[in-house]
């Protein structure tokens, strides 16, 4: 088992864990967004979907799996970031972008930490709401609070920024890089980031304007 610990604790091993957990979380975002879009179908449609989801006996296992994915992604990110900060003890007096960095890549830690704060509030508001008898009404009521809706939209902007670098970066870390398809993965990553961010953010905007 020595090789496994050695691999998981290595620099690339940690990055591979970041990439795999991140890409799996991208899959979660797709299913979560698809579910949320039922809100546009009205009270009956959304509550029907939510009931079917919550009655699925595999849901607790999926939720624990999801929690572990998030914990792995966050814990590894903190370990990697600590190592990166440690690697440059004296900062430059002047820094310039040579053309590699993007706003997304340069702010991964900050967008990630904002998303972590959002996740805690989000899970508390919706997953552990005191009254879960009418989930449609609960969501719509929550978004009537302009401050909460604004926080939600800001967090989705951070999510879009995070994915604008994270999606492509995940493939690069896993070694999937070739002139044949890397430009397309980068474009797909940007499109995915925009689609997910706009998709999620559209709901609080629509709900609070109704």
């Amino acid at each position, binding site marked *: 088992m020595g090789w496994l610990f050695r691999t998981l604790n290595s620099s690339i091993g940690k990055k591979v864990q970041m990439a795999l957990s991140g890409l799996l979380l991208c899959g979660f975002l797709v299913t979560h967004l698809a579910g949320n879009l039922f809100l546009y179908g009205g009270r009956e449609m959304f509550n029907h979907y939510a009931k079917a989801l919550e009655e699925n006996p595999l849901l607790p296992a999926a939720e624990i799996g999801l929690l572990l994915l998030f914990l792995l992604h966050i814990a590894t990110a903190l370990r990697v970031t600590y190592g990166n900060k440690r690697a440059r003890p004296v900062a430059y007096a002047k820094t310039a972008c*040579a053309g590699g960095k993007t706003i997304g890549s340069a702010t991964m830690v900050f967008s990630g930490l904002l998303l972590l704060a959002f996740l805690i509030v989000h899970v508390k508001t919706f997953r552990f709401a005191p009254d879960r008898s009418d989930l449609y009404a609960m969501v719509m009521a929550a978004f009537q609070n302009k401050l909460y809706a604004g926080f939600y939209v800001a967090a989705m902007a951070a999510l879009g920024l995070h994915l604008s670098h994270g999606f492509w970066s995940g493939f690069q870390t896993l070694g999937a890089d070739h002139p044949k398809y890397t430009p397309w993965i980068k474009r797909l990553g940007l499109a995915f980031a925009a689609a997910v961010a706009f998709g999620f953010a559209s709901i609080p905007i629509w709900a609070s304007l109704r």
Partner: protein
Amino acid sequence: MTEKAKRNYTLKVWRQKDAHDAGRMAEYRAEGISPDASFLEMLDIVNEQLVRKGEDPIAFDSDCREGICGMCSCVIDGRAHGPGAATATCQLHMRAFEDGATIVVEPFRARAFPPVKDLVVDRSAFDRIIASGGFVSVNVGSAPDGNTHLVPHPVAEKAMDAAACIGCGACVAACPNASAMLFVAAKISQLSLLPQGQPERAARALNMLKRMEDEDFGNCSNHGECEAVCPKEIKLSNIARTNREFIRASVCSDE
């Protein structure tokens, strides 16, 4: 031939007596500089003036001054090797800077590159990474017959492109994480692509990457700043190849 108008600059240079000194920025005037002077020649001129005044000249690294040795360094105006693509500091000319400009000159900064003096840092961490596996152990005997080792031309080109790395350390200096992945990736790629590199392929990848971590370099997070400043235009795809080499060596080899 008409002589080009001389230029004047203000330099903000990092001065640090030795590894134990805290260091500080110092300001100097560089006057009467030809736009055709290289950046290092400009520093030579400033140093001559400092020596004449009885002051300690600015210490900086250089050797071949034609962009092939990897000895010169410096982060100039926030960019490793200064402005301009695919050039080392020795290939940078003063015409790249407007007359009257203020130029900030700092050493390559990384925990793995401890300061020696002023702009000079100790890059021997790279030597130790090479010593950990950046070689092939082959009997060099007599020249092999033609076509004994089959290397398709595109593969030979990729290996040659990776082998162009001069080990200057600009990738580390430019990386927001002070990661040495582009350097290590160039060295691993160059050998893993060729038949002669195959026997030690897995051990080489694991040992060189382990040494890289032990030297306290940061982790690559795919910013691509390294590729942007590299004087030899080493591609980020070498890092992806190295990630594959690492995964292959960890999962599929006996190492």
